[in-house]
């Protein structure tokens, strides 16, 4: 019992990222560029990567995990969580440092990995179980249990391509859940499936954790982290920022990390020339009330709220998407909106120079609570995300304003209190007499 299940020592992973190349102006120039690209590739490979081509996805990570510990790993996107799991599950090699793992590892980075659509559910249980590291014997022993857990006995001999996506996920998790490794590495699997299924997954994880197995669990679901884990590690910019036996404290630190980076209140102003670029340099982000002035919180649920984004444009480019990401206090995304959401003829026109973009949030939408509005600006030259450049990252929460909503939930005297739910719209109800085809006839 004295030996730790996982010992990580100064682990680091470096990626070499491509440098942005100037794009030739003329068509002929671009053809020339394409012809020369193999040579360019060679010269890039020959020389040592320069500073700006290096990205350390994680560095100097050291910690130990005792047998039976359930460790939650949290951090923003890009903090190095997935890289850490990938290195620990041997999918990719570290650049430096080392890790020692004692015991059989089961890694679950995605549900349903390696399922063949042409094969039946039964066949996939064997193939998939094998891919995840079970022997044929083990799968055979657990076969009935897996089928039972997945709840798709009726379709077990149907090719998986005819399954609904929900059925696929259920089958995938059922296989993975019966892996019974000594050390389980799980990445954000609870983000899929319906509520009932997620509940089932959480229950199973709880079960696994309760049986003295070691679990490493990455999630953005803070509630799940608090419920499941006995310890949490906060990663920030590829390093361990906090490590503690009280997951709640670490989660709070994570949430606080977010807040400290953002200005409190309903207005953000660009302090200098941050995010400077030719397409849209944000100058301010605010939520203004009906009178056009920034309102300091709280709003009422039926108040007029307008999101106002101010910025400088040097080059007009319709591939620049400016918008926001609305999240609740725990960073769960509620909705995303950009000024290019409507049919393109309705897009507001941008001018060179100073621009103001604004949109009204629907009244009577959000429930009582605290919310965060993250600015999101991206330049996407193609719909498939190639050449995409994130100017301000909404997911990462670089620029955000906060507001809260209190009261105004309903005009009815009966319903003045907060009700359950993220949103609290007031719907119109109607009555009428049943027509000819009414039920029961």
């Amino acid at each position, binding site marked *: 019992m004295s030996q730790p299940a996982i010992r990580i020592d100064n682990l680091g992973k470096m990626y070499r990222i491509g440098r942005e190349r100037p794009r030739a102006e003329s068509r002929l120039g671009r053809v020339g560029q394409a012809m020369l690209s193999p040579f360019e590739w060679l010269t890039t490979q020959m020389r040592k990567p320069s500073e700006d081509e290096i990205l350390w996805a994680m560095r100097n990570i050291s910690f130990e995990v005792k047998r039976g510990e359930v460790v939650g790993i949290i951090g923003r996107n890009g903090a190095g969580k997935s890289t850490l799991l990938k290195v*620990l599950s041997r999918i990719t090699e570290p650049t430096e440092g080392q890790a020692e793992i004692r015991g059989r590892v089961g890694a679950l980075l995605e549900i349903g990995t390696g399922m063949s659509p042409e094969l039946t559910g039964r066949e996939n249980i064997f193939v998939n179980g094998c891919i995840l590291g079970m022997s044929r014997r083990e799968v055979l022993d657990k076969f009935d249990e897996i089928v039972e857990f997945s709840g798709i006995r009726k379709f077990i001999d149907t090719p998986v391509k005819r399954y609904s996506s929900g059925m696929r996920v259920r089958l995938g998790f059922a296989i993975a859940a019966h892996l019974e490794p000594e050390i389980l590495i799980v990445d954000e699997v609870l983000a899929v499936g319906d509520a009932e299924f997620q509940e089932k997954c959480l229950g199973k994880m709880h079960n696994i954790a309760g049986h003295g197995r070691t679990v490493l669990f990455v999630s953005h679901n803070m509630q799940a982290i608090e419920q499941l884990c006995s310890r949490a590690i906060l990663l920030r910019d590829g390093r361990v920022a906090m490590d503690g036996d009280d997951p709640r404290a670490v989660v709070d630190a994570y949430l606080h990390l977010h807040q400290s980076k953002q200005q409190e209140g309903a207005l953000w102003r660009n302090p200098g020339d941050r995010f400077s670029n030719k397409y849209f340099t944000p100058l301010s982000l605010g939520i203004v009330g009906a009178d056009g002035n920034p309102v300091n919180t709280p709003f009422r649920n039926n108040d007029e709220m307008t999101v106002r984004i101010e910025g400088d444009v040097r080059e007009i480019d319709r591939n620049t998407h400016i918008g926001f990401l609305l999240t609740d206090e725990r960073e769960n995304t509620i909705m995303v909106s950009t000024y290019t959401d409507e049919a393109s003829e309705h897009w507001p026109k941008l001018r060179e120079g100073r621009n103001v973009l604004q949109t009204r949030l629907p009244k009577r939408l959000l429930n009582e609570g605290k919310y965060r509005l993250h600015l999101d600006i991206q330049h996407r030259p193609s719909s498939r995300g190639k050449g995409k450049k994130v100017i301000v990252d909404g997911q990462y929460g670089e620029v955000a304003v906060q507001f809260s909503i209190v009261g105004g939930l309903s005009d009815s005297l009966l319903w003045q209190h907060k009700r359950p739910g993220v949103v609290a719209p007031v719907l119109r109800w109607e009555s009428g007499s049943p027509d000819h085809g009414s039920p029961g006839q």
Partner: protein
Amino acid sequence: MSTNSPILTIRPSQGWGRLDLRDLWEYRDLLWFNVWREVKAKYRQMALGPVWIVLQPIMEMVVFSFIFGRVARLSDEGIPYFLMVYVAMVPWSFFANASNQSVGSLVNQMGVISKVYFPRMIIPLSATLGGLVDFAISFSVFFLVMLIMGFYPGWPFLMMPVYLLLAMLTALAVGLWTASLTVRFRDFRLIVQYGTRLAMFMTPVAYSAREFEKNIPNWVWLYQLNPMYWVVEGFRWSLLGIGRPPSLYMLYSVVIVLVTLVSGAYLFRRTERSIVDLL
């Protein structure tokens, strides 16, 4: 959960690393399932299913024997021309299919590779082994045709598996090299595709090796370095009693195959480490 559970150390590997074939052995179940899956998925939802395995070489054989045998009237070493082509077509198709399956195998399996660890060599291996099923079927059909036509193999028949093994190792060597290179350069898919087509003409598949050796004697040394030359001629020799019996010169080819195979395996192991970052 005892204290003697295996210890896995993860650290950056240096230099060319080790082959670590034990790892491969531990995952043999997966290899088996992968082969099985490949074969099964290939012929699902096809009206003719495995009949295709038989149809393909037969059709090619008919075309070749018509063009060369009837119209061009090449010599045929005293046996029906189409049988001479047919016997070569069976191992050749196996080789060509297995190589072409392996080339893109890593890239095609990216979804799994980026999410689960297993020895990546299983992928090109199962592509090659999967071809054996096709081979077994088309060979049985050939064997039947041969018997019906009154040709009964003698003791050299016992050598046939050796030639099959040579074909397999050659395909695997090609597969390991090109699958690794395809990760960086997708060009290799096309190179193998055209390469196998070209190689068919440099191998005595659709014509008799004697023709070549009689007409271009200066290049015979190079011509016979091709391992598939020995496979094709070996199939002819062991089954029909024509072609070239094994000779010492064949050892050169075998050595070439083994060197390519081992170097390919090392290259593959090296690529495997960074494959997820490259794809």
